[in-house]
Protein backbone atom coordinates (compact mmCIF):
# COMPACT_ATOMS: atom_id res chain seq x y z
CA UNK A 1 0.00 0.00 0.00
CA UNK A 2 1.68 3.26 -1.06
CA UNK A 3 0.10 5.30 1.71
CA UNK A 4 -1.50 4.11 4.91
CA UNK A 5 -4.80 5.76 4.16
CA UNK A 6 -8.35 4.59 3.89
CA UNK A 7 -8.43 6.15 0.43
CA UNK A 8 -5.84 3.65 -0.76
CA UNK A 9 -7.82 0.78 0.67
CA UNK A 10 -10.96 2.02 -1.06
CA UNK A 11 -9.11 2.34 -4.37
CA UNK A 12 -7.46 -1.06 -4.15
CA UNK A 13 -10.69 -2.79 -3.18
CA UNK A 14 -12.54 -1.15 -6.07
CA UNK A 15 -9.78 -2.13 -8.49
CA UNK A 16 -9.63 -5.67 -7.15
CA UNK A 17 -13.39 -6.03 -7.48
CA UNK A 18 -13.21 -4.76 -11.04
CA UNK A 19 -10.90 -7.68 -11.80
CA UNK A 20 -13.92 -9.93 -11.68
CA UNK A 21 -14.24 -11.20 -15.20
CA UNK A 22 -17.53 -11.29 -17.05
CA UNK A 23 -19.78 -13.07 -14.67
CA UNK A 24 -20.64 -16.40 -16.21
CA UNK A 25 -23.52 -17.45 -14.04
CA UNK A 26 -26.24 -19.92 -14.71
CA UNK A 27 -28.83 -17.17 -14.61
CA UNK A 28 -31.73 -19.18 -15.97
CA UNK A 29 -31.13 -21.98 -13.53
CA UNK A 30 -30.80 -19.62 -10.59
CA UNK A 31 -33.97 -17.80 -11.57
CA UNK A 32 -35.85 -21.09 -11.85
CA UNK A 33 -34.60 -22.16 -8.40
CA UNK A 34 -35.49 -18.79 -6.89
CA UNK A 35 -38.92 -18.86 -8.47
CA UNK A 36 -39.61 -22.35 -7.17
CA UNK A 37 -38.61 -21.23 -3.67
CA UNK A 38 -40.73 -18.11 -3.90
CA UNK A 39 -43.74 -20.03 -5.14
CA UNK A 40 -43.36 -22.55 -2.33
CA UNK A 41 -43.11 -19.65 0.11
CA UNK A 42 -46.27 -18.04 -1.26
CA UNK A 43 -48.04 -21.37 -1.29
CA UNK A 44 -47.20 -22.00 2.35
CA UNK A 45 -48.49 -18.53 3.21
CA UNK A 46 -51.69 -19.20 1.26
CA UNK A 47 -52.17 -22.53 2.99
CA UNK A 48 -51.65 -20.85 6.33
CA UNK A 49 -54.23 -18.22 5.40
CA UNK A 50 -56.69 -20.91 4.37
CA UNK A 51 -56.03 -22.72 7.60
CA UNK A 52 -56.76 -19.53 9.51
CA UNK A 53 -59.98 -19.08 7.58
CA UNK A 54 -60.90 -22.64 8.43
CA UNK A 55 -60.27 -21.93 12.06
CA UNK A 56 -57.63 -24.60 12.43
CA UNK A 57 -54.81 -22.11 12.95
CA UNK A 58 -55.45 -18.88 14.77
CA UNK A 59 -53.04 -16.13 13.87
CA UNK A 60 -53.91 -13.16 16.01
CA UNK A 61 -52.25 -10.09 17.34
CA UNK A 62 -50.71 -10.90 20.68
CA UNK A 63 -51.76 -7.66 22.32
CA UNK A 64 -55.39 -8.10 21.36
CA UNK A 65 -55.79 -11.67 22.37
CA UNK A 66 -53.21 -12.28 25.04
CA UNK A 67 -52.02 -15.08 22.74
CA UNK A 68 -48.81 -15.41 20.76
CA UNK A 69 -48.37 -16.06 17.07
CA UNK A 70 -48.07 -19.68 15.96
CA UNK A 71 -45.63 -20.18 13.13
CA UNK A 72 -44.88 -22.95 10.72
CA UNK A 73 -41.75 -24.61 12.09
CA UNK A 74 -38.65 -23.26 10.33
CA UNK A 75 -35.70 -25.43 9.32
CA UNK A 76 -33.52 -26.43 12.23
CA UNK A 77 -29.81 -26.36 12.78
CA UNK A 78 -27.62 -28.31 15.18
CA UNK A 79 -25.11 -25.52 15.71
CA UNK A 80 -25.91 -25.67 19.42
CA UNK A 81 -25.11 -28.34 21.96
CA UNK A 82 -25.98 -29.28 25.51
CA UNK A 83 -22.91 -29.90 27.64
CA UNK A 84 -23.02 -31.80 30.91
CA UNK A 85 -20.65 -29.86 33.15
CA UNK A 86 -20.12 -32.86 35.43
CA UNK A 87 -18.97 -35.46 32.91
CA UNK A 88 -18.27 -33.22 29.90
CA UNK A 89 -20.60 -35.14 27.59
CA UNK A 90 -21.96 -33.17 24.64
CA UNK A 91 -25.22 -33.71 22.77
CA UNK A 92 -26.64 -31.70 19.86
CA UNK A 93 -29.60 -29.40 20.49
CA UNK A 94 -31.77 -28.43 17.54
CA UNK A 95 -33.06 -24.89 17.24
CA UNK A 96 -34.46 -22.97 14.26
CA UNK A 97 -31.86 -21.87 11.75
CA UNK A 98 -30.52 -18.44 12.72
CA UNK A 99 -31.67 -18.65 16.34
CA UNK A 100 -29.45 -16.79 18.80
CA UNK A 101 -29.50 -15.49 22.38
CA UNK A 102 -31.26 -18.66 23.56
CA UNK A 103 -32.61 -18.72 27.11
CA UNK A 104 -34.27 -21.68 28.84
CA UNK A 105 -37.36 -20.91 30.88
CA UNK A 106 -36.90 -21.38 34.64
CA UNK A 107 -38.93 -24.61 34.52
CA UNK A 108 -36.85 -25.88 31.57
CA UNK A 109 -39.94 -26.65 29.50
CA UNK A 110 -39.48 -23.97 26.86
CA UNK A 111 -36.84 -21.74 25.40
CA UNK A 112 -36.91 -18.21 24.02
CA UNK A 113 -34.56 -16.92 21.37
CA UNK A 114 -33.93 -14.14 18.88
CA UNK A 115 -34.33 -14.73 15.17
CA UNK A 116 -35.09 -12.69 12.04
CA UNK A 117 -38.67 -11.94 11.10
CA UNK A 118 -39.69 -11.92 7.44
CA UNK A 119 -38.10 -8.50 6.97
CA UNK A 120 -34.84 -9.37 8.66
CA UNK A 121 -35.53 -7.59 11.95
CA UNK A 122 -34.65 -9.21 15.26
CA UNK A 123 -37.71 -10.58 17.04
CA UNK A 124 -38.23 -12.84 20.03
CA UNK A 125 -39.60 -16.33 19.54
CA UNK A 126 -40.41 -19.17 21.90
CA UNK A 127 -40.67 -22.91 21.47
CA UNK A 128 -40.97 -26.03 23.56
CA UNK A 129 -37.59 -27.62 24.22
CA UNK A 130 -38.62 -30.56 22.04
CA UNK A 131 -38.77 -28.13 19.09
CA UNK A 132 -42.56 -27.90 18.92
CA UNK A 133 -44.85 -24.87 19.24
CA UNK A 134 -42.55 -22.25 17.72
CA UNK A 135 -44.18 -18.85 18.27
CA UNK A 136 -43.22 -15.27 17.55
CA UNK A 137 -43.76 -13.26 20.73
CA UNK A 138 -42.88 -9.72 19.67
CA UNK A 139 -44.74 -7.87 16.95
CA UNK A 140 -42.76 -5.18 15.11
CA UNK A 141 -44.19 -1.71 15.59
CA UNK A 142 -46.25 -2.57 18.63
CA UNK A 143 -43.78 -1.77 21.37
CA UNK A 144 -40.57 -1.92 19.37
CA UNK A 145 -39.58 -2.40 15.75
CA UNK A 146 -37.03 -5.01 16.77
CA UNK A 147 -36.46 -7.04 19.93
CA UNK A 148 -33.27 -8.55 21.27
CA UNK A 149 -31.54 -9.92 24.38
CA UNK A 150 -34.54 -11.45 26.20
CA UNK A 151 -34.31 -12.50 29.85
CA UNK A 152 -36.76 -14.54 31.91
CA UNK A 153 -38.00 -13.38 35.27
CA UNK A 154 -37.18 -15.98 37.95
CA UNK A 155 -40.82 -17.14 38.15
CA UNK A 156 -41.04 -17.53 34.37
CA UNK A 157 -44.06 -15.21 34.12
CA UNK A 158 -42.26 -12.27 32.50
CA UNK A 159 -39.69 -11.64 29.82
CA UNK A 160 -37.68 -8.42 29.69
CA UNK A 161 -35.94 -7.55 26.46
CA UNK A 162 -34.12 -4.78 24.65
CA UNK A 163 -36.44 -3.26 22.07
CA UNK A 164 -35.77 -0.63 19.41
CA UNK A 165 -38.26 2.20 19.99
CA UNK A 166 -39.56 4.94 17.68
CA UNK A 167 -36.55 7.06 18.58
CA UNK A 168 -34.28 4.39 17.12
CA UNK A 169 -32.72 3.71 20.52
CA UNK A 170 -33.04 0.67 22.74
CA UNK A 171 -35.29 0.46 25.78
CA UNK A 172 -36.01 -2.33 28.24
CA UNK A 173 -39.51 -3.63 27.56
CA UNK A 174 -41.42 -6.27 29.56
CA UNK A 175 -43.99 -8.75 28.31
CA UNK A 176 -45.70 -11.77 29.76
CA UNK A 177 -44.35 -15.12 28.65
CA UNK A 178 -47.16 -15.44 26.07
CA UNK A 179 -46.23 -12.14 24.39
CA UNK A 180 -48.82 -9.92 26.10
CA UNK A 181 -47.47 -6.42 26.76
CA UNK A 182 -49.09 -4.49 29.62
CA UNK A 183 -49.92 -0.79 29.17
CA UNK A 184 -46.70 0.44 30.77
CA UNK A 185 -44.43 -2.19 29.26
CA UNK A 186 -41.50 0.13 28.62
CA UNK A 187 -39.59 -0.01 31.88
CA UNK A 188 -36.31 1.84 31.37
CA UNK A 189 -37.70 5.36 31.24
CA UNK A 190 -35.14 8.11 31.57
CA UNK A 191 -32.28 5.83 30.48
CA UNK A 192 -30.75 6.06 27.02
CA UNK A 193 -30.02 3.05 24.84
CA UNK A 194 -30.82 0.35 27.39
CA UNK A 195 -29.56 -3.19 26.72
CA UNK A 196 -29.19 -6.71 28.17
CA UNK A 197 -31.68 -6.88 31.07
CA UNK A 198 -31.23 -9.28 33.97
CA UNK A 199 -33.78 -9.90 36.75
CA UNK A 200 -32.99 -10.06 40.43
CA UNK A 201 -33.60 -13.34 42.24
CA UNK A 202 -37.03 -12.28 43.54
CA UNK A 203 -38.08 -10.51 40.34
CA UNK A 204 -38.38 -7.15 42.05
CA UNK A 205 -35.46 -5.49 40.27
CA UNK A 206 -34.03 -5.46 36.75
CA UNK A 207 -30.40 -4.62 36.00
CA UNK A 208 -29.45 -3.42 32.54
CA UNK A 209 -26.78 -1.58 30.56
CA UNK A 210 -27.15 2.12 29.80
CA UNK A 211 -23.96 4.18 30.08
CA UNK A 212 -22.87 1.77 32.77
CA UNK A 213 -25.03 -0.69 34.69
CA UNK A 214 -28.32 0.55 36.14
CA UNK A 215 -30.92 -1.05 38.33
CA UNK A 216 -34.64 -0.32 38.45
CA UNK A 217 -37.34 -1.45 40.84
CA UNK A 218 -40.04 -3.47 39.03
CA UNK A 219 -43.53 -2.86 40.42
CA UNK A 220 -46.40 -5.21 39.71
CA UNK A 221 -50.05 -4.20 39.74
CA UNK A 222 -53.46 -5.34 38.49
CA UNK A 223 -53.09 -8.57 40.38
CA UNK A 224 -49.64 -9.16 38.93
CA UNK A 225 -50.86 -8.94 35.33
CA UNK A 226 -49.15 -5.61 34.72
CA UNK A 227 -45.75 -4.20 35.50
CA UNK A 228 -44.10 -0.81 35.66
CA UNK A 229 -40.90 0.51 37.18
CA UNK A 230 -39.33 3.25 39.23
CA UNK A 231 -36.70 5.47 37.68
CA UNK A 232 -33.46 3.46 37.19
CA UNK A 233 -30.41 4.23 39.27
CA UNK A 234 -26.77 3.90 38.25
CA UNK A 235 -24.76 1.35 40.25
CA UNK A 236 -21.65 0.97 38.03
CA UNK A 237 -20.11 3.60 35.77
CA UNK A 238 -19.06 0.99 33.21
CA UNK A 239 -19.82 -2.60 32.37
CA UNK A 240 -21.93 -4.79 30.10
CA UNK A 241 -23.88 -8.08 30.20
CA UNK A 242 -25.02 -7.95 33.84
CA UNK A 243 -26.17 -11.24 35.37
CA UNK A 244 -27.84 -11.20 38.77
CA UNK A 245 -26.88 -14.11 41.01
CA UNK A 246 -29.72 -16.55 41.74
CA UNK A 247 -29.28 -16.08 45.48
CA UNK A 248 -29.30 -12.29 45.14
CA UNK A 249 -26.84 -9.72 46.35
CA UNK A 250 -24.22 -10.08 43.61
CA UNK A 251 -24.10 -9.12 39.94
CA UNK A 252 -21.60 -10.67 37.55
CA UNK A 253 -20.82 -8.55 34.50
CA UNK A 254 -18.22 -7.79 31.85
CA UNK A 255 -15.91 -4.97 32.84
CA UNK A 256 -13.63 -3.05 30.51
CA UNK A 257 -13.76 -3.20 26.74
CA UNK A 258 -11.90 -4.65 23.77
CA UNK A 259 -8.83 -6.64 24.73
CA UNK A 260 -9.20 -5.48 28.33
CA UNK A 261 -12.69 -6.81 28.89
CA UNK A 262 -13.08 -9.45 31.57
CA UNK A 263 -15.69 -11.02 33.78
CA UNK A 264 -16.10 -9.28 37.11
CA UNK A 265 -18.49 -9.27 40.07
CA UNK A 266 -19.89 -6.57 42.30
CA UNK A 267 -22.44 -6.34 45.07
CA UNK A 268 -25.83 -5.35 43.70
CA UNK A 269 -25.38 -1.82 45.06
CA UNK A 270 -22.24 -1.47 42.93
CA UNK A 271 -19.77 -1.89 45.77
CA UNK A 272 -16.85 -4.31 46.05
CA UNK A 273 -16.04 -4.66 42.35
CA UNK A 274 -13.57 -7.47 41.69
CA UNK A 275 -12.33 -9.19 38.53
CA UNK A 276 -12.85 -12.93 38.52
CA UNK A 277 -11.54 -13.95 35.09
CA UNK A 278 -8.62 -13.02 32.82
CA UNK A 279 -8.74 -10.56 29.91
CA UNK A 280 -10.88 -11.13 26.81
CA UNK A 281 -13.50 -12.97 28.83
CA UNK A 282 -17.15 -11.95 28.73
CA UNK A 283 -20.86 -12.90 28.99
CA UNK A 284 -21.08 -14.45 32.47
CA UNK A 285 -24.17 -16.59 33.12
CA UNK A 286 -25.00 -18.11 36.51
CA UNK A 287 -26.03 -21.70 36.93
CA UNK A 288 -29.55 -21.90 38.46
CA UNK A 289 -28.14 -22.95 41.85
CA UNK A 290 -25.65 -20.07 41.81
CA UNK A 291 -22.60 -22.32 42.30
CA UNK A 292 -21.07 -21.82 38.84
CA UNK A 293 -20.62 -19.03 36.34
CA UNK A 294 -20.13 -19.98 32.69
CA UNK A 295 -18.35 -17.43 30.56
CA UNK A 296 -16.52 -17.00 27.25
CA UNK A 297 -12.80 -16.61 26.78
CA UNK A 298 -11.74 -15.27 23.39
CA UNK A 299 -8.28 -15.92 22.00
CA UNK A 300 -9.10 -14.20 18.69
CA UNK A 301 -12.13 -12.75 16.94
CA UNK A 302 -13.23 -16.24 15.98
CA UNK A 303 -11.71 -18.49 18.62
CA UNK A 304 -13.76 -18.77 21.75
CA UNK A 305 -14.02 -21.30 24.56
CA UNK A 306 -16.44 -21.80 27.43
CA UNK A 307 -14.97 -21.72 30.93
CA UNK A 308 -16.55 -22.32 34.32
CA UNK A 309 -15.92 -20.40 37.52
CA UNK A 310 -16.76 -22.12 40.79
CA UNK A 311 -17.88 -19.48 43.21
CA UNK A 312 -17.11 -21.35 46.43
CA UNK A 313 -13.50 -22.20 45.55
CA UNK A 314 -12.64 -19.50 43.00
CA UNK A 315 -11.47 -22.28 40.67
CA UNK A 316 -11.65 -21.86 36.87
CA UNK A 317 -12.04 -24.80 34.51
CA UNK A 318 -12.12 -25.08 30.72
CA UNK A 319 -15.37 -26.71 29.66
CA UNK A 320 -15.34 -26.67 25.86
CA UNK A 321 -13.26 -25.19 23.06
CA UNK A 322 -14.92 -23.73 19.96
CA UNK A 323 -18.11 -22.79 21.76
CA UNK A 324 -19.75 -19.81 23.46
CA UNK A 325 -22.24 -19.72 26.32
CA UNK A 326 -25.96 -19.48 25.74
CA UNK A 327 -28.04 -20.65 28.70
CA UNK A 328 -28.20 -23.11 31.57
CA UNK A 329 -30.88 -25.75 31.13
CA UNK A 330 -30.43 -26.90 34.74
CA UNK A 331 -27.64 -27.02 37.33
CA UNK A 332 -25.71 -29.62 35.35
CA UNK A 333 -26.45 -28.82 31.73
CA UNK A 334 -25.29 -25.80 29.76
CA UNK A 335 -26.44 -24.86 26.27
CA UNK A 336 -23.61 -23.58 24.09
CA UNK A 337 -23.33 -22.28 20.56
CA UNK A 338 -20.76 -24.12 18.51
CA UNK A 339 -20.78 -21.56 15.69
CA UNK A 340 -17.35 -19.97 15.69
CA UNK A 341 -17.38 -16.23 16.12
CA UNK A 342 -20.89 -16.09 17.55
Amino acid at each position, binding site marked *: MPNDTYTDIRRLLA*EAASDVRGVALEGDRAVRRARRRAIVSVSVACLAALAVAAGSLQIVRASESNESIPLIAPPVTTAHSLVNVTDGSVSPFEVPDGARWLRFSPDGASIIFVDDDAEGRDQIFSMRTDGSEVKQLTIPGEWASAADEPAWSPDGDWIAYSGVTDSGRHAIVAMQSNGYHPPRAQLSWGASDARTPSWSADGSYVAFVSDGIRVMHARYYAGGDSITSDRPGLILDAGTSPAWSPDGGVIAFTSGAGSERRVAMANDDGSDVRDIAPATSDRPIWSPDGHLIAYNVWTS*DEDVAVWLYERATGRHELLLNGASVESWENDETLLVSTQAGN
Partner: protein
Amino acid sequence: MKTTDGVADVGEHVVSDRKGLGELYERSVPAAVRLAYLLTGDQAIAEDLAQDAFVRVAGKLVHLRRRDAFDDYLRRTVINLSKNHFRRRAIERAYLTRFRVVDRSASHDKGVVERQAMLAALQVLPHRQRSAIVLRFYEDLPEDAVAEILRCRPATVRSLVFRGVQTLRSEIGRTTDA
Protein backbone atom coordinates in the same frame (compact mmCIF):
# COMPACT_ATOMS: atom_id res chain seq x y z
CA MET B 1 -25.37 -3.73 -4.87
CA LYS B 2 -24.61 -0.11 -4.14
CA THR B 3 -27.64 1.07 -6.05
CA THR B 4 -31.18 0.45 -5.01
CA ASP B 5 -32.72 1.80 -8.18
CA GLY B 6 -35.47 -0.37 -9.49
CA VAL B 7 -35.96 -2.22 -6.27
CA ALA B 8 -39.53 -0.98 -6.26
CA ASP B 9 -40.05 -3.73 -8.83
CA VAL B 10 -39.33 -6.29 -6.15
CA GLY B 11 -42.56 -7.74 -4.92
CA GLU B 12 -45.12 -10.39 -5.27
CA HIS B 13 -45.61 -9.82 -8.99
CA VAL B 14 -41.94 -10.54 -9.61
CA VAL B 15 -42.40 -14.01 -8.21
CA SER B 16 -44.95 -14.90 -10.80
CA ASP B 17 -43.07 -13.01 -13.50
CA ARG B 18 -40.02 -14.94 -14.60
CA LYS B 19 -38.79 -12.03 -16.68
CA GLY B 20 -38.92 -9.74 -13.65
CA LEU B 21 -36.95 -12.21 -11.60
CA GLY B 22 -34.43 -12.50 -14.40
CA GLU B 23 -34.01 -8.72 -14.53
CA LEU B 24 -33.57 -8.62 -10.79
CA TYR B 25 -30.93 -11.30 -11.13
CA GLU B 26 -29.04 -9.39 -13.81
CA ARG B 27 -29.18 -6.19 -11.78
CA SER B 28 -28.11 -7.55 -8.42
CA VAL B 29 -25.98 -10.65 -8.86
CA PRO B 30 -22.89 -9.13 -10.53
CA ALA B 31 -22.49 -6.77 -7.58
CA ALA B 32 -22.99 -9.70 -5.22
CA VAL B 33 -20.26 -11.60 -7.05
CA ARG B 34 -17.85 -8.70 -6.64
CA LEU B 35 -18.61 -8.53 -2.91
CA ALA B 36 -18.16 -12.30 -2.56
CA TYR B 37 -14.95 -12.10 -4.60
CA LEU B 38 -13.42 -9.64 -2.15
CA LEU B 39 -14.47 -11.87 0.73
CA THR B 40 -13.21 -15.12 -0.78
CA GLY B 41 -10.58 -14.06 -3.32
CA ASP B 42 -11.81 -16.65 -5.80
CA GLN B 43 -14.19 -15.84 -8.63
CA ALA B 44 -15.58 -19.35 -9.00
CA ILE B 45 -16.42 -19.54 -5.30
CA ALA B 46 -17.78 -16.00 -5.44
CA GLU B 47 -20.12 -16.88 -8.29
CA ASP B 48 -21.39 -19.92 -6.40
CA LEU B 49 -21.97 -17.91 -3.23
CA ALA B 50 -23.69 -15.04 -5.04
CA GLN B 51 -25.95 -17.40 -6.96
CA ASP B 52 -26.86 -19.33 -3.83
CA ALA B 53 -27.52 -16.07 -1.98
CA PHE B 54 -29.77 -14.84 -4.77
CA VAL B 55 -31.79 -18.06 -4.74
CA ARG B 56 -32.25 -17.86 -0.98
CA VAL B 57 -33.23 -14.19 -0.88
CA ALA B 58 -35.40 -14.23 -3.98
CA GLY B 59 -37.24 -17.15 -2.43
CA LYS B 60 -38.46 -14.71 0.21
CA LEU B 61 -39.37 -11.93 -2.22
CA VAL B 62 -42.98 -11.65 -1.25
CA HIS B 63 -42.03 -10.94 2.34
CA LEU B 64 -39.89 -7.91 1.50
CA ARG B 65 -41.61 -4.56 1.75
CA ARG B 66 -38.86 -1.97 2.04
CA ARG B 67 -37.51 -0.62 -1.23
CA ASP B 68 -33.93 -1.45 -0.42
CA ALA B 69 -34.61 -4.64 1.50
CA PHE B 70 -33.57 -6.98 -1.30
CA ASP B 71 -30.07 -5.55 -1.59
CA ASP B 72 -29.65 -5.51 2.19
CA TYR B 73 -30.74 -9.13 2.40
CA LEU B 74 -28.52 -10.18 -0.47
CA ARG B 75 -25.51 -8.43 1.05
CA ARG B 76 -26.09 -10.04 4.45
CA THR B 77 -26.64 -13.45 2.92
CA VAL B 78 -23.41 -13.22 0.91
CA ILE B 79 -21.55 -12.32 4.11
CA ASN B 80 -23.10 -15.25 6.00
CA LEU B 81 -22.50 -17.74 3.21
CA SER B 82 -18.89 -16.68 2.86
CA LYS B 83 -18.51 -17.14 6.62
CA ASN B 84 -19.92 -20.64 6.41
CA HIS B 85 -17.64 -21.31 3.51
CA PHE B 86 -14.55 -20.35 5.43
CA ARG B 87 -15.52 -22.30 8.47
CA ARG B 88 -14.10 -25.22 6.62
CA ARG B 89 -10.63 -24.27 7.65
CA ALA B 90 -8.85 -27.02 5.74
CA ILE B 91 -10.32 -25.73 2.50
CA GLU B 92 -9.35 -22.21 3.43
CA ARG B 93 -5.76 -23.16 4.13
CA ALA B 94 -5.49 -25.12 0.88
CA TYR B 95 -6.97 -22.21 -0.99
CA LEU B 96 -4.63 -19.68 0.57
CA THR B 97 -1.63 -21.74 -0.42
CA ARG B 98 -2.87 -21.95 -3.99
CA PHE B 99 -3.75 -18.28 -4.07
CA ARG B 100 -0.33 -17.14 -2.96
CA VAL B 101 1.47 -19.24 -5.57
CA VAL B 102 -0.62 -17.69 -8.32
CA ASP B 103 -0.13 -14.27 -6.79
CA ARG B 104 3.65 -14.29 -7.08
CA SER B 105 3.77 -15.33 -10.69
CA ALA B 106 0.79 -13.44 -11.98
CA SER B 107 2.23 -10.11 -13.01
CA HIS B 108 5.00 -7.60 -12.47
CA ASP B 109 2.73 -4.67 -13.22
CA LYS B 110 2.68 -2.47 -10.08
CA GLY B 111 -1.07 -1.96 -10.10
CA VAL B 112 -1.79 -5.64 -10.56
CA VAL B 113 0.68 -6.58 -7.84
CA GLU B 114 -0.98 -4.13 -5.45
CA ARG B 115 -4.43 -5.49 -6.17
CA GLN B 116 -3.32 -9.07 -5.77
CA ALA B 117 -1.50 -8.17 -2.58
CA MET B 118 -4.70 -6.59 -1.29
CA LEU B 119 -6.75 -9.68 -2.14
CA ALA B 120 -4.20 -11.98 -0.51
CA ALA B 121 -3.99 -9.77 2.58
CA LEU B 122 -7.79 -9.70 2.88
CA GLN B 123 -7.87 -13.48 3.06
CA VAL B 124 -5.48 -13.44 5.99
CA LEU B 125 -7.95 -11.41 8.08
CA PRO B 126 -10.47 -13.13 10.38
CA HIS B 127 -13.88 -13.23 8.74
CA ARG B 128 -15.42 -10.42 10.75
CA GLN B 129 -12.51 -8.07 10.16
CA ARG B 130 -12.56 -8.91 6.46
CA SER B 131 -16.29 -8.33 6.23
CA ALA B 132 -16.04 -5.05 8.12
CA ILE B 133 -13.27 -3.79 5.82
CA VAL B 134 -15.11 -4.76 2.63
CA LEU B 135 -18.48 -3.41 3.76
CA ARG B 136 -16.98 -0.18 5.05
CA PHE B 137 -14.55 0.62 2.25
CA TYR B 138 -15.88 -1.20 -0.80
CA GLU B 139 -19.63 -1.07 -0.21
CA ASP B 140 -19.07 2.31 1.45
CA LEU B 141 -21.63 1.58 4.15
CA PRO B 142 -21.79 3.70 7.31
CA GLU B 143 -20.66 2.11 10.55
CA ASP B 144 -24.17 1.55 11.87
CA ALA B 145 -25.18 -0.27 8.68
CA VAL B 146 -22.10 -2.48 8.91
CA ALA B 147 -22.88 -3.10 12.57
CA GLU B 148 -26.38 -4.22 11.65
CA ILE B 149 -25.11 -6.69 9.06
CA LEU B 150 -22.42 -8.07 11.36
CA ARG B 151 -24.80 -8.01 14.35
CA CYS B 152 -22.53 -5.99 16.56
CA ARG B 153 -22.22 -2.44 17.81
CA PRO B 154 -20.76 0.44 15.76
CA ALA B 155 -17.89 0.62 18.23
CA THR B 156 -17.09 -3.00 17.44
CA VAL B 157 -17.09 -2.15 13.74
CA ARG B 158 -14.58 0.63 14.40
CA SER B 159 -12.42 -1.84 16.29
CA LEU B 160 -12.68 -4.49 13.57
CA VAL B 161 -11.79 -1.95 10.88
CA PHE B 162 -8.89 -0.57 12.89
CA ARG B 163 -7.39 -3.99 13.51
CA GLY B 164 -8.10 -5.08 9.95
CA VAL B 165 -6.33 -2.07 8.49
CA GLN B 166 -3.31 -2.71 10.70
CA THR B 167 -3.08 -6.29 9.46
CA LEU B 168 -3.62 -5.24 5.85
CA ARG B 169 -0.82 -2.75 6.19
CA SER B 170 1.70 -5.28 7.41
CA GLU B 171 0.55 -8.05 5.05
CA ILE B 172 0.61 -5.84 1.96
CA GLY B 173 3.96 -4.38 2.95
CA ARG B 174 5.37 -7.88 3.33
CA THR B 175 3.98 -9.02 -0.05
CA THR B 176 5.07 -6.01 -2.09
CA ASP B 177 8.51 -5.96 -0.48
CA ALA B 178 9.07 -9.61 -1.38
